[in-house]
């Protein structure tokens, strides 16, 4: 039930190959590497824009089959990023202690000079079980909880981190919409300060 897999995604090409690393093998150097090298900031990839896109889509496509659902944002896949698993209490935004180390590693990476001048987006995702709007809200609260930890407890400048929940709108494995593969957190480099 408790998954301790961390997926490291290096999006330098369109065909990113996810590598599964055991939780204790991920180090902050690897996180720095994955988040570096943003070439052009797309400008319209922000928490506010994505949130509105998700709300619009839910409103306009009620009752659609998640298996036929396109990802909400292709742009997200093309940016430097990291995908991790963060465990929360059931139906809650309380981060579980087994995920503290992962957040600590992210914090250490964001304190590294190579990432100093950049802004990041925390994206929370759910699987497709349960209500679509509920999933959107829960994933937003969870992304907010991660951002809060980073910018308070871990002393990252608040203006460097945004947070958005995309619920089930950007399924990683749409063929299996209830798969735990879909329950994940992305950390994406979205621009320069």
């Amino acid at each position, binding site marked *: 039930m408790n998954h301790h897999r961390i997926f490291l995604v290096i999006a330098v090409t369109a065909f990113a190959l996810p590598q599964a690393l055991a939780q204790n093998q991920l180090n902050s150097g690897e996180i720095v590497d994955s988040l570096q090298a943003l070439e052009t900031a797309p400008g319209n990839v922000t928490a506010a824009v994505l949130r509105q896109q998700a709300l619009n889509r839910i409103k306009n496509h009620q009752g659609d089959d998640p298996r036929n659902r396109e990802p909400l944002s292709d742009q997200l896949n093309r940016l430097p990023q990291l995908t991790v698993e963060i465990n929360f209490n059931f139906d809650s935004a*309380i981060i579980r202690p087994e995920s*503290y*180390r992962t*957040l600590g590693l992210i914090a*250490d990476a964001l304190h590294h*000079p*190579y990432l100093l001048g950049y802004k990041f987006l925390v994206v929370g995702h759910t699987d497709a079980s349960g209500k679509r709007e509920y999933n959107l809200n829960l994933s937003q609260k969870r992304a907010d*909880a991660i951002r809060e930890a980073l910018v308070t*407890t871990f002393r990252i400048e608040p203006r460097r981190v945004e947070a958005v929940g995309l619920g089930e709108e950007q399924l990683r494995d749409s063929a299996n919409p209830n798969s735990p593969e879909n329950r994940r957190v992305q950390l994406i480099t979205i621009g320069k300060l």
Partner: protein
Amino acid sequence: MGKCIHSALAFAILVAFVVQSSAQTIGYADALDMLAAACGADVQKYCKNVNLGNNRINNCLEQHQSNISFECKKTRADVFTLLQKRANAQASVRGICDADIRSLCPGVVQEDGYLLECGLKAWRSLGDKCRQAITDAGWH
């Protein structure tokens, strides 16, 4: 139950860090490991549904000072010192390394991120004080 193991583990981690490298500081991931080892049981007992942000867990342990284990108290104090040293070191690198960076990175965009990146990459040519600051910052 696992109290002796927890405190031995916390102590071992602390010793490993202070001894293994010339860094006298600690990063957040390792700080959390130390705290988990020493304070895990107390967090379960007194701070169970408290979230990680806004220093809530730390504040909760603070409120239960008189109840938490000695190992937890000691580790919290040690970790706080080590984290503070790291934050101070990170803030000081730019200044301590200024002369080194000016001479080694003449053409670089004059922003801290670029200058520090150039400085880190020129590790072999840096002076001792600058190197120590970078090590304490956790950047080498």
